[in-house]
């Protein structure tokens, strides 16, 4: 696809959790918990409130279409602030410092006074109905000439357990939101910028690691389309694909509009028609269960509702997402019927009842009430009208699906979603504070230094930078551990163990250091490392694991063992001479069970064989 010709413009927002002691607006630890550990539950409703300027935000209004009760899980590591039962504490200064550090790394300008805002979010993910966020700095630069518009310090939302149930452990963890200008023009460029920003963030050593700790939102538009914000791209490798698919979606929506207009398509109705009685005897479980079924005819839409706009997504999927805002499970449309238990006869009956011609598409929604069904059909009409309009690509917030395609979430929020957080005092960023912020070395620069200093291959050094274990390696080296031992453990051994299903994340840095020291001191063999780590990951200490898996063998012990083995195989040694070394290595290693480094074994064995084969004192 010629992205330049299509006028692709993209920007990204990166959300990165910070690794601080306490949450952003309360004193709780930033620890994630197992769902089963929750020790309290409560439930709440949320309603949209007006902004300072007296308006209700359009995205919030959309979420209000259904009265939803949210349920929250609380823990012994959460408090009344997460429960929205206590005013917030002052902004966490540690988090602000990390945010300022990142701002400085991008050459940004801090605001003189930081004001915390409430960003209205009433999808249940914040008990308060808003996310606290503050603009901290603006105008940063990227190495390739791109621009970073702003950095904000925000509180993380609660984790959705399922449906309307949320877990409060994550709520309030500090995160930075970095927003670039719409300065990218190809899918690969977007991915590269995201990778670069991620690397800068990790260079601070103060950000959380692991799945879900960094999320990218991508803003995309093509010239004839519209700005769409895709939320929650967790996998960096998918970013370029997400951009490609969005361009594809916008292009196809434009093509569908042109085809609809060529056909003279129209939406005559302003409301649905009740067709509940047509499905009294249906085999479709959804329709049978429904209290009210409404239908509408979209004139000239046949074939278009079911047309694919990106992999696994059709115009019908978009209509379905809109309808779901009213609480229904989705829609049925005649482009995909008969199916889902709806028979060909029923479709014929429905078409004739609705007086639908062959080129028309009939849409069905099944609701639990008149209100719900008419709300849902209203949403379908709204979305169909957009498909036919001058702007067939609506400005939307969308969420990424697993494959890289996207689904509609809500309209793009406007400035009306922002309200001052009256419970938090503004914070001054004066020159003294800004000048005191230290800028850490970039991981890429560190990797280069590492290559030069320790003779490690550049791709290993870069992998290390990406792994975030560079500080550990540096510490190890400074404590006298050989760089190759540490690097090999991190990049190769740990990766293999992880693939075997070992929970490597449970191994503390200090435990790795202890193990490396043991190896360097000859107290354990390199060969024992994987088994020791397995055991440590399963909960035992390094000392315990070493004792069990690699009992101490002194050099004298080793010499004694080697002599015993040589004595038992006198003839073999006499016959093979020094060539006996290879076969006997395995025998000795089996005997010492990995508790001695292979190099030492080989050394001792060599000396002892030499002594037997060509005795100096015959």
């Amino acid at each position, binding site marked *: 696809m010629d992205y330049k010709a299509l006028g692709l413009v993209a920007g990204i927002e990166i959300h990165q959790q910070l690794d601080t002691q306490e949450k952003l607006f309360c004193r709780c630890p930033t620890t994630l918990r197992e769902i089963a550990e929750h020790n309290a539950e*409560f*439930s*709440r*409703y*949320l*309603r*949209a*409130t007006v*902004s*300072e*300027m*007296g*308006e209700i935000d359009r995205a*919030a209004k959309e979420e209000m279409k259904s*009265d939803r*009760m949210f349920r929250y899980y609380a823990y012994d590591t959460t408090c*009344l602030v997460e*429960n*929205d*039962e*206590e*005013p917030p504490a002052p902004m966490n200064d540690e988090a602000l410092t990390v945010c300022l550090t990142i701002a400085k790394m991008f050459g940004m300008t801090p*605001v*003189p*006074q*930081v*004001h915390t*805002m*409430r*960003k*209205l979010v*009433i999808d249940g993910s914040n*008990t*308060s*109905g*808003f996310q606290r*966020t*503050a*603009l901290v700095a603006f105008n940063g630069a990227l190495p390739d000439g791109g621009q970073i518009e*702003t950095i*904000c310090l925000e509180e993380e939302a609660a984790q959705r357990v399922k449906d309307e149930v949320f877990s409060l452990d994550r709520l309030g963890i500090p995160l930075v939101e970095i927003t670039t200008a719409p300065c990218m023009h190809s899918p690969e460029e977007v991915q590269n910028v995201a990778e670069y920003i991620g690397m800068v963030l990790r260079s601070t050593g103060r950000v959380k690691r692991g799945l879900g700790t960094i999320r990218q939102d991508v803003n995309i538009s093509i010239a004839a389309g519209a700005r769409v914000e895709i939320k929650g791209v967790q996998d960096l490798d998918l970013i370029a694909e997400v951009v490609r698919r969005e361009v594809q979606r916008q292009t196809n929506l434009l093509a569908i509009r042109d085809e609809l207009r060529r056909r003279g398509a129209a939406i005559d109705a302003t409301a649905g028609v009740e067709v509940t009685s047509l499905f009294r005897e249906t085999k479709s479980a959804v329709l049978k269960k429904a209290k009210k079924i409404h239908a509408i005819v979209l004139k000239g839409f046949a074939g278009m509702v079911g047309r694919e706009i990106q992999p696994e997504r059709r115009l019908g999927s978009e209509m379905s997402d809109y309808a779901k805002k009213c609480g229904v499970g989705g829609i049925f449309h005649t482009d995909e019927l008969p199916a889902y238990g709806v028979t060909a006869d029923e479709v014929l009956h429905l078409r004739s009842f609705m007086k639908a011609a062959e080129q028309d598409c009939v849409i069905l929604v099944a609701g639990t009430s008149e209100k719900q069904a008419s709300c849902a059909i209203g949403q379908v009409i709204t979305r169909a009208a957009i498909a036919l309009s001058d702007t067939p690509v609506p400005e939307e917030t969308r969420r990424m699906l697993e494959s890289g395609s996207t689904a509609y979430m809500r309209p793009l929020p*406007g*400035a*009306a*979603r*922002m*309200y*001052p957080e*009256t*419970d938090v005092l*503004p914070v*001054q960023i004066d020159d003294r504070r800004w000048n005191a912020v230290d800028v850490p070395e970039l991981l890429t620069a560190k990797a280069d230094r590492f290559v030069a200093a320790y003779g490690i291959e550049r791709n290993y050094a870069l992998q290390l930078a990406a792994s975030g274990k560079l500080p550990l390696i540096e510490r190890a080296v400074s404590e006298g551990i050989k760089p190759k031992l540490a690097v090999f453990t991190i990049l190769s051994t740990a990766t293999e163990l992880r693939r075997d299903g070992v929970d490597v994340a449970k191994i503390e840095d200090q435990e790795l250091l202890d193990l490396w020291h043991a190896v360097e001191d000859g107290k354990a063999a390199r060969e024992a490392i994987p088994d020791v780590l397995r055991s440590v990951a399963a909960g035992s200490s390094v000392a315990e694991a070493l004792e069990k898996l690699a009992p101490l063998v002194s050099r004298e012990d080793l010499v004694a063992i080697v002599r015993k083995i040589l004595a038992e195989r006198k003839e073999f040694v006499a016959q093979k001479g020094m060539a006996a070394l290879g076969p006997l290595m395995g025998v000795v290693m089996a005997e010492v069970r990995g508790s001695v480094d292979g190099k030492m074994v080989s050394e001792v064995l060599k000396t002892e064989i030499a002594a037997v084969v060509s005795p100096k004192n015959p």
Partner: protein
Amino acid sequence: MAVIKLGSGYNIGIPPGVCTFIERPVQAPAKSSDIPHNPNLPSLSIVSTGGTIASRIDYRTGSVTSQFNASDILVAIPELASVANYRTIPLATILSENMTPAIWQQLARAVYDEIRGGAAGIIVTHGTDTMAYSAAALSFMIDTPVPVVFVGSQRSADRPSSDNAMNAICAAAAATSDLGEVAVVMHATTSDDTCAIHRGTRVRKMHTSRRDAFRSLGIPPVGSVEYPSRKVTLAPDAVRRGARTPALHEHLDPDCALIQFYPGMSPRILEAYEGYHGLVIAGTGLGHTSTELIPPLKRLVANGTMIVMTSQCMNGRVCDRVYDTGRDLLDAGLIEGGDMLPEVALVKLMWVLGNEKDRSKAAAMMARDLKGECTRRTPHGL
């Protein structure tokens, strides 16, 4: 610092010297309430006094302040229209820490006028800090045949999670119910599931911030309202609609005070209360002060101050006959306040002294239950 709202909606602070004022965006005019009258629904009156249920940002301090009046509340909580028709009477827009006995009197007159005007029930929106005081004041000042329901919110109305809507809807349900007394209706739990109906003379704010801060002390709540079903359940001893004949006794004697005794409290503090007509002491335990305070207390009584002893324990009954300091306090002329809450005793004392000039009759009234403020027996389990 000058606060600037950016196009993104974010605010930032900029030193005044570095920016130039161009214009201030106009705030969208508040939507006017156009609530249709439904002849099948009862008529309620909403008297608004302010508080968090009707609070918005204050650009003077950047914190929240009371700004809404009753019709704003109806616009903000449209579900109220399905419970009743409303007359709205904006009485004050104050945070409740600024409430005074004089405003209690205005409030009592306004509520009484609505009762006489035929309202099926009255809702008083009020800040939560001193809501219990006002509820107690109205309990004594008005004999009401209809529910007079105080309601507020613990979390400000400008947040989507505010408890204002549910509290107001439950208050409206209680105000149309079979209740016939002054009550406080607020969240019963941290969840949006039930509101408790508390008797105006037995209720206390027991938490600074939680939704379920209000608790009945010494008695169970007189009822509950389920949400969102709005089902009202009344306890057997809740005063029923029509049980009392409307009357207004609006006099109060504001020259009364409430002090809390603490170990080592200086007798000189009591000098400040010379000339007061009434004084309530929240004593320790069964109702004690130190022996050192007894002579100056005796002097206050001799000079005409009526002194009532209550307990800072909040739960349980005063008994000054167990220990010698207690007996000395009784000898000094103090009145035992039974199981009255200290602040309820204060409000009652203002009301009694405002309406009964005969000292011995007034003292007898202080010891007698008037509006459920003191019980004759202390049930177990509370």
